[in-house]
């Protein structure tokens, strides 16, 4: 338990640092795109903490702006995709069986495509750019949420509290919102956190290939592509720093997702310990069992 709490602490600390970086980025948007050929390709130093790129732009400013882009787009895609996925899961869980069967097949078909490639195809179809890339990623996120939450929602329908709600005649949407959604809490929060990491990775991958955010935009994946061109001539900082930020973001989010179930379980255990009812005398039962 303590290990997972420490893990959650490390994750929260990393995320806090990244949020600070993202906020700093909001004030550096001009610096991030300011071309200054005179100071091109400077190594990291006091003037430019992370050095400058081929066009003299400050890499630190670009990484900071990239952080706000990554966090905002990661959270937005997961929120939209997770919401749609939750909706489908509730329809599957509480709706008619045939609809469930059809939807599950369709979800499986969508999930047969590797996330990056499906997102890439959708992005290309709607035209290259950061916004279409976000749309492409949403398409890959929806089935992940729908599929995992659907299993839980189905399980919920066989739990006594849902059956009881049915018996007293509550409407299906009411049951879904008031009884099933809270039941999905842990799974939903784990999926939300875990998918932010994946989404940020896929988005930067798309930009790296060239279908996501386009070059002047200080997006991490696009910056790594630019860094690649300078890597062999020794200007390592152009590509390494954005990748490091990307790695830290994904790891922090994954650490958080990994520790959620244990932390939530511990919290629930503390709560029940506080409100524990007196238990029936165990000895009488034991004596009978021992005989």
């Amino acid at each position, binding site marked *: 338990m303590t290990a997972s709490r420490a893990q959650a602490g490390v994750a929260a600390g990393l995320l806090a640092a990244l949020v600070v970086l993202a906020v700093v980025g909001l004030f550096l948007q001009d610096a991030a795109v300011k071309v200054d050929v005179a100071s091109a390709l400077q190594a990291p130093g006091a003037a430019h903490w992370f050095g400058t790129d081929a066009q003299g732009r400050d890499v630190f400013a670009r990484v900071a702006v990239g952080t706000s882009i990554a966090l905002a787009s990661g959270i937005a895609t997961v929120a939209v995709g997770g919401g749609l996925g939750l909706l489908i899961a509730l329809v599957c869980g509480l709706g008619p069986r045939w609809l469930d069967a059809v939807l599950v097949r369709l979800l499986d078909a969508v999930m047969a495509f590797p996330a990056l490639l499906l997102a890439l195809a959708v992005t290309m179809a709607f035209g290259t750019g950061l916004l279409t890339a976000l749309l492409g990623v949403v398409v890959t996120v929806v089935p992940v949420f729908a599929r995992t939450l659907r299993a839980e929602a189905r399980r919920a329908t066989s739990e006594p509290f849902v059956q009881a709600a049915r018996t007293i005649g509550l409407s299906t949407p009411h049951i879904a919102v008031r009884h099933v959604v809270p039941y999905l809490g842990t799974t939903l929060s784990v999926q939300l956190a875990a998918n932010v990491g994946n989404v940020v990775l896929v988005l930067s991958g798309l930009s790296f290939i060239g279908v996501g955010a386009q070059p002047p935009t200080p997006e991490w994946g696009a910056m790594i592509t630019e860094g690649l061109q300078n890597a062999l001539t020794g200007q390592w900082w152009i590509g390494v720093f954005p990748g490091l930020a990307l790695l830290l973001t994904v790891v922090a989010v994954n650490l958080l997702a990994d520790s959620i179930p244990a932390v939530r379980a511990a919290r629930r255990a503390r709560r029940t310990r506080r409100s524990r009812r007196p238990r029936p005398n*165990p*000895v*009488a039962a*034991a*004596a*009978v*069992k*021992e*005989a």
Partner: protein
Amino acid sequence: MSAAPSPALPALSVEGLRVAYGDVEVVRGVDLVVRPGEKVGVVGESGCGKSTVALALMGLLATGGSVTGGAVTVSGSRVDYHDERALDRMRGSQLSLVFQDPLTSLDPVKSIGSQIAEALRRHSPRMSRAAVRARCAELLTAVGVPEPERRLRQYPHEFSGGMRQRALIAVAVANDPAVLIADEPTTALDVTTQAQVVDLLDSLVDGLGVAVVLVTHDIGLVSEFCDRVLVMYAGRVVEEVPSDVLFGGAAHPYTRALLESLPVPGRPRGEDLAWIPGAPPPLSALPPGCSFAPRCAWAQPECSVGTPPRVVVSEPSVAALGTALHTAECRRALEVPRG
């Protein structure tokens, strides 16, 4: 392999065994002597330390547990619980274990034959393939599994619970061990299968001269099967009694209480079973003096002070096999009415 049954050399001798999990001592000085061919029962409620004794003797305590004191001798040689290699040599060849739950005690993805053969090969690496196969079939026959050749090729899921327990007994006796420790071997089985497995153990003792330590909560089973019974409470043996005097002759108040809580067929319906007030004390916070005193109907103020003495209830009769001593760890052992 098995030593000649000389009455002077016990198959297993345990003196003052202590086991601790972390800071908590769960076995607090257990003595036990088993002679070749003898059947000794260890009974008690769950959590009294009886299964821990079984695992400690095998040197297979779960992580965190360790033997903190005492001496164990198997067939005359002292066991060193820090020498893993020596322990590996001893396990399965001199000391064997039959486990509680036959459903989870076999590797689901290996054939029954290979799991028996593993025990043979470990201790007789030079045995030929054909000899191993023949011996496996012989063992399965000995434990009463029909069509051994076909059954050896099957997997655990193709065996019923009783058949699996037979196969596990075959594994345990594969190398003619001196002592077989059976930890609740029948608990997970249905009643008719239980009787068959007990009969099988009985016939193995007669046929192989193996000594058996039967660890169970089933006091009825112990009285039927065993020559001697050790009753454990809170990590100690509180009474050691020949099984033929167990009913009617038990001297320790705890043993009496256990016996009275047994349902007796034919007793009028509606009559409540006797039960023991309170719960066994947590081993991390034992009461001073006799651990049973707080629940004991005969307890006196001095019971809560100092360790209770070990009282000899009756000397063995000369006619009895060996030394079937009857002792109880209770200050008032001789005053408690027996009935």
